[in-house]
């Protein structure tokens, strides 16, 4: 069930120079949201920026009936959002989209986050740990940033007790290199193989790389994709990704377009073609 509601901003926290965490009071989303879902938020009453902005659900608190988003200021919309004050009301559509497939078997889970990709994957990590279906030792969290100061949630990751491996492009913390390099290098050590569940979110280029790696090694990897989303509801066909079904049905191998907002944002990395 999707809701449209004016929801109150409970808190706004600046985590780094351009990263913000907002908390909204919204029982419907708090209750309904699954890891991978997103909220579509109206930023302003002005006609510029015109459209809503999509943000992954980053955290929910069932008791307090709140949900959080974590976002980076990249343009006018996120700038305006970062200036919203506690107590203001925002028009939110959510929860939207599909969610990560949660395995019920005991297997290695590897979460691969690049930059803002941390947002949906933190929610997933908390969810997995809380659900207690999977031992936390089975969960690895690979997390890459450009530089040391960009990392967020490290305390939370520690608390969750999942195996966390960091990497920075400039080598200021953890490994030096991209998180996809780390993923490749650690592939064997982390027991990444056919039975493994991989979840990944990050910039477009990283998603492309993860998709290529998944195809190459035939890995089960779920990507959380992003694009401009006019409606977020599946109505406009504006948010598509090239999709090639990877199964034995008659449609297998045939390229189509899937809407990221309703057919995703979570896709099997082997089934999408990114550029």
């Amino acid at each position, binding site marked *: 069930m999707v809701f449209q509601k004016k929801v109150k901003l409970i808190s706004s926290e600046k985590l780094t120079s351009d990263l913000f965490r907002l908390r909204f009071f919204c029982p419907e989303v708090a209750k309904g949201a699954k890891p991978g879902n997103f909220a579509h938020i*109206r930023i302003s009453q002005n006609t510029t920026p*015109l459209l809503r902005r999509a943000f992954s659900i980053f955290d929910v608190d069932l008791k307090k009936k709140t949900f959080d988003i974590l976002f980076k200021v990249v343009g006018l919309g996120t700038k305006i959002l970062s200036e919203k004050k506690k107590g203001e009301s925002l028009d939110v559509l959510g929860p939207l989209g599909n969610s990560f497939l949660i395995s019920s078997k005991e297997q290695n889970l590897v979460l691969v986050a690049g930059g803002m990709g941390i947002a949906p994957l933190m929610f997933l990590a908390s969810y997995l740990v809380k659900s207690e279906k999977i031992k936390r030792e089975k969960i690895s969290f690979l997390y890459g940033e450009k530089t040391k100061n960009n990392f967020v949630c490290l305390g939370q990751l520690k608390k969750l007790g999942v195996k966390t491996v960091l990497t920075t492009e400039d080598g200021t913390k953890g490994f030096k290199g991209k998180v996809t390099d780390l993923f490749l290098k650690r592939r064997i050590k982390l027991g990444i193989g056919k039975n493994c569940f991989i979840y990944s979110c990050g910039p477009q280029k990283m998603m492309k790389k993860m998709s290529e790696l998944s195809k190459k090694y035939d890995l089960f990897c779920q990507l959380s994709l992003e694009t401009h989303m006019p409606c977020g509801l599946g109505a406009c066909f504006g948010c598509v990704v*090239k999709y090639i079904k990877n199964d034995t049905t008659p449609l297998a191998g045939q390229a189509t377009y899937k809407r990221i907002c309703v057919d995703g944002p979570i896709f099997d990395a082997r089934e999408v073609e990114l550029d």
Partner: protein
Amino acid sequence: MQERLSLIDLKVKIGKIIFKNSVLVASGTFGYGEEYSELFDLNRLGGIITKSVTLNPREGNPPPRTCETPSGMLNSIGLANIGIEKFIQEKLPFLRKFNTRIIVNVAGSTVDEYLQVVEKLNRAKGVDMLEINISCPNVVEGGMVFGSDPECAFRCVKSIRKATDYPLVTKLTPNVRDIGEIALAVEDAGSDCVSLINTLVGMAIDSKTKKPLLANITGGLSGPAIKPVALAMVWKVAQKVKIPVVGIGGITNTEDALEFLLAGASLIQVGTSNFIDPQTAIKIIEGLKNYCKGNKISKIKSLIGKLKIGD
């Protein structure tokens, strides 16, 4: 004496079709209705215009397909749709359940394609009206080509007119020199009304990557930015043709809707604004009701074309 809300008559009649109110949702911005059905009661709408349907399913143009512009957006969806067969099988039965007017928007690359789609719709149940899209800027064949030449427009609509008993609304493109001329042509061809405007051809470039922001390079501009253009065209066409005019373009609130009614629109369509606030159409319906109440207007249709000119 104040009018009671319930006594206010929001109904508008076009030919034999009665719309419960003046507010429809525009093709391509409301999917097949179901996408919005969890958010409000579709029965409240004056009508629903479905995403353009073509003979065969269409995948549409490659992404990126949309981008934002000042007070507007560009789209180059390219008539992505499931095709008429699937539409009739999978989408119409759902839409049929609602007590609102269902208008199926039809597109094609050739007149014959339009006719084949119309033919299949003739045998379908639950359709009130057809909107003939001769104005899509995002396809190579057909689309806008039919709509930018009076003779082509006439021929296309005339053939469809002969092929169906459904009331027809022909959707016009603003990318012409004289939209009044095209409107007259389709009136002559037997269209029961005209709707306008479809999107303006536009383009956006990312100066950093030096690439167009749409993979299709150009797209259609919609949203508040185009409202002044739409309003001028609606006003112009309303003075030129005798058939009713349906106003479209950047309508986001009750004032906008009123402006189109005053300019001569009998009905209005909400497009891009459905994305910004899915409740837009509902809010406008309420807004029009309150406007009538506040101004002691008992029938909304008495506002149509009542623009005051001169002192």
